[in-house]
Structures are given as structure tokens and as C-alpha cells.
């Protein structure tokens, strides 16, 4: 005989369910407040999953390290840049890009899983703002990407220290080189806006470009030319 389960269950009261929020603020302000609130709740949800399944952290800690080591030591010398120079200077930026792509993929897969298990249907049947399902997850994954970026940057800095100790001079970062090249091409542009710019020199170079920089940018790489 099946026991009468209902009589054993503790009484369920609904008194703790909160009354609807007081409508003192204007409606649009309240809507924005609750949207932010929902985003925060859902961001915490994705981050809380990291606590119950810490394996997820492997993606953002071990994987970038492995990539840095793999491309700097194992594949070292296998990749040549067309205009000479050391590809390691582009390495860290490249691994940032790989991490970002990987996390975006994780976001997409996570959303697909939520969709197929019906979790998103649950959210959609709640009185919450609907866009927050996407925003919450994106923010959480973005914060995981920041961890990956930090790990990559530290690995890159550690590698740079070693290479500095070996060669004795700092290597110009890829980003800095890129900006300088863009800058050089721009100041060669004979557009009317640049002509007669205050502080510009007679030959059209902005004052900011120093001779040292012109040496770095303008000279072909001796080692490759040789």
C-alpha cells in the first residue's frame, strides 16, 4: 500500500513570495533596473557553474599556456614572416585571438545546450527581460576570456623577459610596430589636412616621429638583407 504522501509533506505557504515591486520609480527606469538585475543573476549563474565543475577552467588557464609554449618552442623556426622579423612578436596577439574565438564557440555551444534542454523556455516563461539570457551568458564568458587573456599575457611577459636576457634589447611589440607603420604611411599622405600642420616639419613629418623611430621603421632588416 502506498502511504499517503500528501499528509506527510510539510505545509506549503506562499507568504514568502514577495509582493510586486513598488512602482515608485518611472516605468522605463524600473525596466532598466530589472534588466540589469536579470543580467547580473544570469552572469552569476554561468560563473557558479565554474564552481561546481572546475574543469571548465582548464580552457582558460592550461590551454593558453600550452598554445604559448607550443608556438614559441615547438614550432619555433618553422614559421617565417614574409618581410623578415621574428614571428614571436605576433604570437601573443594571435593567441589572444584564438582564445576569443574559442570562448565565442563555448558561448554558442552553451546556448545551444540551454535551448535543447528547455532551460531557455523556462527563462522565457518567467517575467524577466528576454534579452538578458544572451547578455548574461556573454558577460560571464567574457570574464572567463579575461582570465585566459591574463594567463596569455603573463606567459608572454615571462617569455619576453627570457628573450630580453638573451638578446639584450627589448623587442618591439607587434601592436606597436603596426601602429607605427600605419603612422608612417599616414604622414606620407600628401593630403591637404596634414599640410601646414602646426609643429610639422618642413618635409611633412609630424614632430612626434623621432629620428630613432625613423631608423626602426624606415631601414630594411639588415639580417634578412644579408
Amino acid at each position, binding site marked *: 500500500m502506498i502511504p499517503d504522501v500528501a499528509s506527510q509533506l510539510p505545509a506549503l505557504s506562499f507568504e514568502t513570495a*514577495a509582493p510586486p515591486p513598488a512602482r515608485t520609480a518611472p516605468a522605463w527606469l524600473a525596466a532598466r533596473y530589472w534588466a540589469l538585475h536579470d543580467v547580473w*543573476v544570469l552572469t552569476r549563474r554561468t560563473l557558479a*557553474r565554474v564552481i*561546481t565543475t572546475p574543469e571548465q577552467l582548464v580552457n582558460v588557464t592550461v590551454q593558453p599556456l600550452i598554445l604559448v609554449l607550443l608556438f614559441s618552442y615547438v614550432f619555433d623556426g618553422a614559421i617565417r614572416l614574409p618581410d623578415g622579423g621574428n614571428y614571436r612578436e605576433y604570437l601573443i596577439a594571435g593567441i589572444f585571438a584564438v582564445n576569443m574565438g574559442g570562448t565565442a564557440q563555448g558561448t554558442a555551444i552553451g546556448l545551444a545546450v540551454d535551448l535543447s534542454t528547455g532551460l531557455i523556455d523556462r527563462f522565457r*516563461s*518567467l517575467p524577466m527581460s528576454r534579452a538578458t539570457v544572451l547578455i548574461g551568458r556573454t558577460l560571464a564568458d567574457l570574464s572567463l576570456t579575461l582570465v585566459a587573456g591574463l594567463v596569455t599575457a603573463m606567459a608572454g611577459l615571462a617569455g619576453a623577459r627570457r628573450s630580453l636576457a638573451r638578446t639584450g634589447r627589448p623587442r618591439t611589440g607587434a601592436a606597436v610596430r603596426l601602429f607605427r607603420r600605419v603612422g608612417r604611411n599616414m604622414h606620407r599622405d600628401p593630403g591637404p589636412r596634414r599640410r601646414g600642420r602646426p609643429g610639422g616639419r618642413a618635409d611633412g613629418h609630424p614632430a612626434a616621429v623621432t629620428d630613432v623611430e625613423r631608423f626602426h621603421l624606415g631601414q630594411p632588416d639588415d639580417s634578412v638583407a644579408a
Partner: protein
Amino acid sequence: MRQPPMIETCGLAKSFGRAPAVSGLDLQIPAGSTFCLLGPNGAGKTTVVRMLSTLVRPDAGWARVAGHDVAADGAAVRREIGLSGQYASVDEFLTGRANLVMIGELCRLRRPAARRRAAELLAHFELEPAADRPVRTYSGGMRRRLDLAASLITRPRVLFLDEPTTGLDPRSRLVMWDVIRRLVLDGTTLLLTTQYLEEADQLADVVCVMDSGRVTAQGTPADLKASVGGTRLLLSLPPGAALGRAAAILAPHAAGPVRLTGGPGRLEVPVVPRPGIVTDVVKDLDAAGIPVDDISMRRPSLDDVFHALTGAGEAAA
């Protein structure tokens, strides 16, 4: 009716591609009642629930839940409903408690209130021992109960349960039924879908049989049973018995034609129940020298309704 119905639909229709999932559904569900959509797989039950809970937009017709139009005022509908079952789920990687707190907060409870409410529901659904384990370690019955708890965080006036006991073992099913009965006592209006006739019989005030997106019958379980015929007497005679002669003897007792049913030596006699009918039948057969192996009275079940109605639909298709 003085009070407007809690759920009301008129000509509600939805099709996916060219296949109509639901066509022309008219429902009126009074407040505080339990309404059951009964039908085989693909009958459109889930689509009806998804339309009423604002998850999909109807193609035609309109529906009102707690006085709000599902298409025009979805946000107001969502404040009044709870949804649980086949398609609304919980986060497998969070603990049961974290799931309930999260949904409480999304329902705009403050955090301490959400925590209190989660603890209360966990106790109510006997989930306390497992409250701090990830949901992926739960059994099917525990997960369903958590799911139901999640839809009860704020007291919904209308609750949609989409196949709440599909895939549960008999004991978990009985627990679920008890839980559901208690909810209805509180005055919640319940729309239940199920493939199980017994479930509809046990829980529903009104049963609506759906097949291929249409309502084929609607009424109380008692009405529906009455519609497919009354009580029958089932007789089992030993092999080689004179079935024709037996049928002739039974004819005066029968309220309709005596039928041969499945299996050798089995007769089905529609009867009007009256005291002493079984002994009369046995006496007459005995007097004619026809032995009887087994005799039983059978009241119509919702099974009969279901087979009579959905079977006809299949034959026509």
C-alpha cells in the same frame, strides 16, 4: 457564467511549415479547475501549452490567460503562470538550491526572500537531502519535483504541467499526483497534458481528448466514459463450448448486441447494471449445461474513450 474563465481560447491555431499542429482550438477553463489535454504523441498538446505560456505565437485566433491576451500582453501573462514539464527545465550544473534561488531572483524576489522560498520548496518536495548536489546527479523523479518547485516560486494563478509524470516510476508518479492534487486545493488553475488515461482520470475535472491538432471530445471523465457505452459483462467459456447457444441465452439479459471478443470463447455482453444480474446469467448458462470459466463486470475506462476516439481519427486519416 458570472466569473470569466481563467483560460479562454478562440480559434487558436498554429502550424509548423505546412503541417498544422493545432487547428481551431476553443477552450474555456474556469478558475480553480483542473483541465487535462489528453492525446497521443503529436496530437498538439505541447503546442497548446507553448502558445498559452507565450513561448510560441499563435498563427490565428486568440487566447487569454488570467485576463491577459497571450499575443498582445505576454509580459502580464508570464507574471501569472508557472510552467513545468517536458520543455521547461533546470540547470544541470547548478545545485537544486542554486536553481531555485536563481529562478526566484529572476521572478524579482529579493535574495533573502528567494533563499527562504527555495528552502521552503525543497522541504516541501522532500529534496532537502539533495539540495546542495548538482542537479545532474538527481534521479528522474527528483528532477521532476525540482522542476515543479521551480514553477511554484511565486504563487502562479495558472500552472501548466506538460506531461509531468512521463518516464517516472509508479511510486514517483503517485508522489507527483499527490503534489498536484494539493496545488489544486490551493485554488491554482491547472492545465495538464498527459498520455496517461489513468492520470487524466485521477486528476482532471474536465478532460479534452485531442488528436491531430483537433479536439475530438471534451467533458468530465464520467461523461466521456458514458459516451462510449455502459457497463459490460465479460464471459470466458472453456474451449469447445457452444458459443452461439450461449449468445442466444445471454441475449435477453443484454442491453445491446452480444459480441465475440478477442481470444477463443470470450463474450462481451453490454448490460444495464442491476442487483443479481451476474447470478442470473450464470444460472441460465448452467441450466443449459454451458460451463463458465470466468465472469467479470467491466465499467468503461478512459482507455475505451481514448481508443474509440483516436482510433477513429487514425482510420479516417
